[in-house]
């Protein structure tokens, strides 16, 4: 076994793996920059993965078949945006505590995807042979990587990014300057939801080429962790996503090499890595958006 080939192998599996993590954590970064911590990312990804899978599954053999993937992706993004809006309704309008609301959204998304999937599809099914599609999955991957500098630019160089950072750090100041705090937070949550939905779509259409109840398998939560690890910065988040996906593909490559090792421990690896990463990141003095996790109420006296 040539070491060079081995590395190429690891990278060629690992880099595509990073796409869904990257999309989801970039979306989560916008949420958190606006001051909202969305743990429901996992549930949005489940729904995204399911809807993206459903399009080619149901449109098979119809006139729309060449467009099926595209439609699936759009449906996933739309649903992601809607779920982001639902989360905003709970946490921005009603000011519900965000951590537990995220768990609620996760259960909702996971439950709906599972219910619909079992009812309409049944067991584990692959996606019918991928015909030439309007938008190839590779294009989606390139788009995800382009999103990194784009979201850096949006965050630091555009009016919207300025508002997002302001409402996440000092919403009252933003409010006195005429920035609509609730609207900005809604926008950020919807954008985050769209990206999470897209991440889910990539997972079922591009990566696994199938759907199962637990297809997301914690990637949504890992994406949230990556935002902390990446210090709310798109480039560091890209680094984190690559680190994770390469660790994962390394583990696969080692298994393929036939080294005796219970596969459960290999599967465990990314989750253990998350805890270790958070443990090391936690001690640092760099702080995130100051008002992360706190609802804003203009009428409240301070």
């Amino acid at each position, binding site marked *: 076994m040539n070491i060079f080939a081995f590395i190429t192998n690891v990278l060629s599996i690992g880099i595509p793996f990073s796409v869904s993590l990257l999309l989801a954590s970039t979306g989560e970064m916008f949420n958190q920059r606006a001051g909202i911590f969305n743990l429901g990312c996992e549930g949005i990804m489940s729904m995204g993965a399911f809807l993206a899978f459903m399009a080619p599954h149901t449109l098979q053999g119809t006139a729309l078949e060449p467009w099926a993937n595209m439609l699936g992706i759009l449906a996933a993004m739309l649903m992601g945006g809607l779920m982001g809006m639902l989360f905003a309704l709970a946490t921005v309008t009603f000011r519900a505590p965000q951590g537990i609301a995220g768990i609620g959204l996760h259960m909702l998304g996971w439950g709906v995807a599972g219910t619909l999937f079992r009812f309409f599809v049944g067991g584990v099914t692959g996606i019918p042979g991928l015909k030439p599609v309007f938008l190839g999955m590779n294009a989606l991957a390139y788009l995800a990587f382009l999103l990194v500098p784009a979201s850096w630019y949006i965050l630091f160089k555009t009016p919207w990014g300025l508002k997002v950072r302001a409402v996440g*750090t000092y919403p*009252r*100041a933003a409010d006195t*300057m005429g*920035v609509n705090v609730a609207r900005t937070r809604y926008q950020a949550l919807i954008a985050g939801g769209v990206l999470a939905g897209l991440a889910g779509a990539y997972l079922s259409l591009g990566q696994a080429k199938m759907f199962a109840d637990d297809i997301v398998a914690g990637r949504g939560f890992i994406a949230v962790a990556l935002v902390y690890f990446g210090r709310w910065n798109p480039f560091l988040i890209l680094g984190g996503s690559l680190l994770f996906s390469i660790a994962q593909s390394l583990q696969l490559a080692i298994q393929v090499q036939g080294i005796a090792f219970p596969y459960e421990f290999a599967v465990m690896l990314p989750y253990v890595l998350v805890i270790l990463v958070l443990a090391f990141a936690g001690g640092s003095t760099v702080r995130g958006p100051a008002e992360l996790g706190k609802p804003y109420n203009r*009428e409240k006296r*301070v």
Partner: protein
Amino acid sequence: MKQEQIRELRTIGITKRFPGILACDSIDIDVGEHEILAIVGENGAGKTTLMNMLMGLYQPDEGKILINGRETRFRTPVDAYAAGIGMVHQHFMLVPSMTVAENVLLGMRTYQKFLRLDMAGVKRRIEEISSRYGLPVQPDAYIWQLSVGEQQRVELVKTLCLGARFLILDEPTSALTPQETDELIALLKRMSSDMSIIFISHKLAEVTALSDRVAILRQGRVVYRGSTSEKSIAQLAALMTGHEVNLPRNEGLDSCEEPVLAIDELRVRSDRGFWALDGFSLTTCKGEIVGLAGVAGNGQRELADALSGLRHVDAGSIRFLGREIANLSPRQIIEAGLGYVPEDRTTEGIVPAFSVQDNLVLKDVRAARFSRGPFLKLDAIKRNAEDLRERYDIRCASLAVPAGSLSGGNIQKVILAREIARKPAALVAVYPTRGLDLGAVEFIHARLLELKSQGTSVLLISEELDELLDLSDRIAVIYKGRILDILPAHQATRQKLGLLMAGIREVA
């Protein structure tokens, strides 16, 4: 509308209610062109609420706002800015993690291009405003890097950049040294040739120095409106409080019999990692009140944290009754007999969701008086609360209501009752009267003096010079983490303290 000069701003019957209080009760005020109106009142009199309605942050429940005789409604601050009204808030409305230019840009639609920020444009605008009014600022500095005085300049520049031709300043001098205050007043006088100003304060000397007319608010109502020059400071004070208040004074003699709290060469880091206390030394004696004066942010917070065991002490010692307490746990320090009135009474002094009676035993649930083994003695906790409610005049509907629902003064009484009932050998009080009305201030000052007479040593950290001058035996001034000088109270004056607070030590 945009270009129209504001010749007159008038409110008619403005009313605003908050849960449990009538914050503004049918308020009428008016301000003419180039006029400075001072709005005076105690904390909680409704000044800030009124201004927030003028800025479109709150909506009035009743009443109207008229500009040049025309009724105007401000739904958001954008409307107020569009009409030319701008406000400098008491707590600066600046995003610390952003630069000066970014903060200004946040409110300026004209420089927010599609997908682009016109940084050059906004910097030109900042230059223009700052040279016109003589307010130097650095557009590229981050807010967190600036001192309080500099941040206030930025606030002013920002408000002017947004096109304010009618300026509201809410307690602008509260964090400034006396010298900085003088500069600000001179600046505002200059600016009044250009615009109208509403100046909110409860410091009457500033009000008489600056304003043309004054409106006095008490418990949400206007109790006096008229020309400032017609009333003396004493008359204004009586109108403001509703009665003659003579705050108790410390008449004691300063003689140190035995040291209680001896702090020596203390070095403590701030949250950001720099030395917040850098060789801080101070001793307090039995039956003595030592005042610690200083502009906020010079290490007071870190000193208080270090004394209560909540912050790591890197070097130096804190001896309490001869025993080293630096780096002991908060529990050990409490048990050693150090009392503590924390800075933020609603989140550090009490557990707001807990009942009044539970809060009164916060430090003593482990004591044999209130628990047997692990079990709480609920009867004893209740009796204790009834007793303290009587003695400290704590006004609450029932001892079972959440302490967080009490007024600020009553919350402070709960905290003082709990601390004094523990018979502390020393008490550290951090800004104990901040934001309280004079009645509560009087009560708290009396309790602190009573403690002194019982032999307790009190360290009073405050930014109110009058409070320090009234109560202290000695006044120490903290500047950049060390004691710059210590004056016996009878030698201290506002002027001397002010210079010391600014870091200027007179050449002896």
